[in-house]
């Protein structure tokens, strides 16, 4: 357990340069255990790039990431998963040819140990596989997808695929889950159900969540703390109430609002 002083996830000076462009510029984030932490900011602020660096999909140019005091720098994604990190993707990436149940069981990969027993269906293998299946069903039940367990994952409606990604991430038995725009493309009813689901993850399962999200009502009512990025830099950090009043945040979102209004897009209502 991390003490209140030392965060579960500590990101320090995280920087990523793409040729001349600095996508993420010296970002610090401290996520405390048992909280929901929001990473917000206008489009192109570097949120997903941060996620990719934290989960090990992308190597940072500079900076450090540690989970519960253990440095993750240089570790490939599968090692970070074993240490308790899980994530979902902004553009849905379920394994669409596989069944819903198999998707969730794939998330358990690092927690299963079947070896040569696979070839002779050893009692150990069968017990493990049986338990994995039962656990996967529990997780599907938790996200409300149990009825679709044997469907092809690619056939699920959009919102269900997002929930499947959450179940698959939970199957990794994580301590921290990175959620990349979990509400994207959901209708208000689905978003409301998602809000309840994410709260239960924190309150019933004691999980720590770091989420990127554009749905501001969701962010404001769910998150315990927020970190705001703009043009790759951290411009604010604090409780939702503090961030909402922060002049730099208001300026960033209003600026983005004007730019997006010209492009015909309707932005989130962050700066109200």
């Amino acid at each position, binding site marked *: 357990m991390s003490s209140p002083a030392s965060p579960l996830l500590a990101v320090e000076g995280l920087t990523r340069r793409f040729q001349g462009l600095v996508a993420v510029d010296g970002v610090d984030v401290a996520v405390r255990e048992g909280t929901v932490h929001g990473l917000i900011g206008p489009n192109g602020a570097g949120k997903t790039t941060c996620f990719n660096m934290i*989960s090990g999909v992308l190597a940072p140019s500079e900076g450090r990431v540690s989970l519960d005091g253990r440095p993750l720098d240089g570790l490939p*994604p*599968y090692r970070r*998963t074993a240490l308790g990190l899980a994530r979902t993707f902004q553009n849905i990436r379920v394994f669409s040819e596989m*069944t819903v149940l198999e998707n969730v*069981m794939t998330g358990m990969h690092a927690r299963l140990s079947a070896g040569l027993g696979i*070839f002779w269906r050893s009692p150990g293998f069968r017990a493990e596989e049986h338990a994995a299946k039962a656990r996967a069903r529990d997780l599907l039940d938790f996200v409300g997808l149990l009825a679709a367990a044997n469907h092809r994952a690619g056939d699920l409606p959009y919102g269900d695929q997002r929930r499947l990604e959450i179940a698959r991430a939970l199957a990794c038995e994580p301590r921290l889950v990175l959620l990349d725009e979990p509400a994207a493309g959901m209708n208000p009813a689905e978003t409301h159900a998602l809000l309840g689901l994410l709260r239960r993850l924190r309150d019933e399962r004691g999980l720590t969540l770091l989420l990127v999200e554009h749905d501001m009502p969701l962010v404001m009512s769910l998150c315990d703390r927020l970190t705001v990025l703009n043009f790759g830099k951290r411009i604010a950090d604090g409780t939702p109430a503090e961030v909402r009043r922060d002049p730099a945040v208001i300026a960033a979102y209003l600026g983005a609002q004007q730019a997006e209004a010209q492009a015909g897009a309707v932005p989130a209502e962050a700066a109200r």
Partner: protein
Amino acid sequence: MWEALDDFYWTYQSLIHAIGVNGILALSVYVVLAVGQLSLGQAAFMGVGAYTGALLTVKFGTPFAVSMAAAATVPALLALVVGGPTLRLTGVYLAIATIGLGEITHIVFLNWDYAGGALGLSGIPERGGVWAIYGTLAVLLVGFTLVARSRVGRAMEAMREDEAAAGVMGVNLPRYRMTALVVSAAMAGIAGCLSAHVSSFIGPGEYGFESAVRILSYALLGGIGSPVAPVLGAAILTLLPEVLRPLADFRLMVNGLIIVLAVLFMPRGILPWRIARTG
């Protein structure tokens, strides 16, 4: 009854052998495709296995089991060497590297006088035969079915569908890629050794790029949803030219047409059925 079967076997034995050997080769390329990689080195691995096994048997008189073990080991080591630098990268690097491997092995076989050079190696004693070929094929089919229905099979399919997501789910990508390639090379080597010991002759021309493409086409035609599919593809593509023999001059044309139509209208293969990935 038994006599008729015996007659049938003696008439068609080379075809029967070829179907089994090509089935093993189809499985060997399936293993690599199943983790989302592309190997065009199966013919080279097969050739290395054939030459290793045949040379040991002919020049040193080793027992068949020893020749087989060596024919699996040498290509596997070669796969480690080729895979080392290429499998850390994603994309088509393995395909390109294995094409290069095929060219190199071809030149070595062609110029290696000890192994017969361009004339090839003849007088290989008959060993193994139909039982060894189909026994191996059966063991591999059962083995891969069991692997598919486990955490390993799930990880493999996840890699094929979305490698980055599979990595985030905890799959050790470089290790899976490397294991798949090494196992695949060993299998192709075994197929080469089995085939060399039923055909009495091997030559450098048998393991070129065309053979690599032919082996790949078994899996493409059959499909890779289950281990049975590529074996079925191999059987069809081996039988087809023989079945079409009455067409005489039109044979190759019709043969090609059937393959093109199959790929066009059955992009998931002739047997698209997908094996469950739970044990």
